[in-house]
């Protein structure tokens, strides 16, 4: 092996264990000392490469990993919270919209009629003008005088609409009068019925009134009685 080739290969890797290089070095004193010199040089180079490492580097690297994990966790949970919140929000809005779009009071009024016959006053106090007016006050209304035969005056909910349900005993059987607040979103047909009852509604200034009675009953008288007595404040 010529000198140049030997040097090239030793320069490329002084730690080499190639047998032909070892053989060449054994055969030639000069090659041997060159190789030895190179190994010494490499030792010094390795020393020179070992620059001082910042003391706290390892702990910094571990710390930044925990911080990163925490931040990503936070980000992730924020993300989940945001999605959960908007889903909840959307559901809330949809339910509200859906309800607003489909409030049909006639069906609800008829449903209430089914158990109006067994309905009892929630209050033990006698149903008198004062009590009816006290309850009507929340609709901004009052009666000028009592309608004969009011047995029950209860607040009830027609769908989600709070209303006042008056059950009145009349010569034509029991009738119900629902006082409901005026609201654009409510559908209130002027006439409705099912197989037992029929009802009519009166649109008044600040509230709507629904009168429901037996199919054969004439509701006109009751409508007039209510309309005549209903007064609105302000």
């Amino acid at each position, binding site marked *: 092996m010529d000198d140049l080739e030997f040097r090239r290969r030793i*320069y490329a*890797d*002084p730690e080499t264990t190639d047998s032909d290089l070892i053989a060449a070095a054994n055969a030639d004193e000069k090659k041997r000392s060159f190789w030895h010199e190179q190994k010494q040089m490499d030792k010094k180079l390795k020393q020179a490469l070992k*620059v001082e490492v910042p003391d706290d580097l390892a702990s*910094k690297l*571990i710390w*930044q990993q925990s911080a990163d994990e925490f931040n990503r966790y936070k980000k992730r949970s924020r993300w989940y919270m945001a999605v959960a919140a908007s889903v909840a929000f959307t559901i809330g809005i949809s339910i509200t919209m859906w309800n607003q779009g489909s409030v049909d009071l006639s069906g609800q009024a008829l449903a209430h009629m089914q158990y109006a016959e067994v309905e009892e006053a929630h209050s033990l106090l006698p149903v008198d003008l004062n009590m009816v007016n006290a309850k009507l006050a929340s609709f901004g209304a009052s009666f000028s005088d009592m309608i004969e035969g009011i047995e029950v005056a209860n607040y009830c909910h027609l769908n989600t609409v709070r209303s006042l349900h008056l059950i009145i005993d009349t010569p034509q059987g029991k009738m119900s009068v629902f006082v409901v607040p005026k609201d654009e979103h409510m559908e209130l047909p002027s006439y409705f019925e099912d197989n037992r009852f029929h009802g009519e509604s009166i649109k008044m200034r600040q509230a709507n009134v629904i009168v429901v009675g037996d199919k054969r009953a004439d509701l006109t008288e009751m409508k007039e009685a209510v309309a005549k007595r209903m007064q609105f404040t302000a």
Partner: protein
Amino acid sequence: MFARNKIDNTQVLSSMKAKHQRYEALVKAFHADIFRYAYWLVKDRSVAEDIVQETFLRAWRSLDALNDEKAAKAWLITILRRENARRFERKQLDVVDIDDVFIHDETQQADGDINQRELHRLLGGLSIEYREPLILQLLFGFSGEEIAAQLNLNKNTVMTRLFRARNQLKEAVEKQDENRGRING
């Protein structure tokens, strides 16, 4: 169902714990040499530290991709080189390299043997394509094949660069010795 959740949670926790342990082992085993490698790439301690932090952060985030612990060193070096390239893309840093500025120091030149500081400067003075394979060889004990794979070069190119790197160092040292001889003589 609750029992199963509990087991799943414990498994998640213990796999998290295992991941942490792996990461910490990786940091302990390699942070020093990875820092040195970064330093010799960029020749600036604080930039090197930034790159190392970026490197280990990325290593942590993709730790699941590291299947073979034996490949960890090469894997980290690959991440680091990518980080360094990215840094170059961001901005070409214009730093004054203290090692490139020749500092005339009488006391050092009076020393008989070539000293660490001079070697440091000479190593820093090598161009990057000679310096990088040499550092991989000396710092990590990589073979010619391993360096070739790491730097995406063929082995002959790597061997030639290693030869030239040492040859240049040797010539520089001899030149210094001559200078020293002239001054001393």
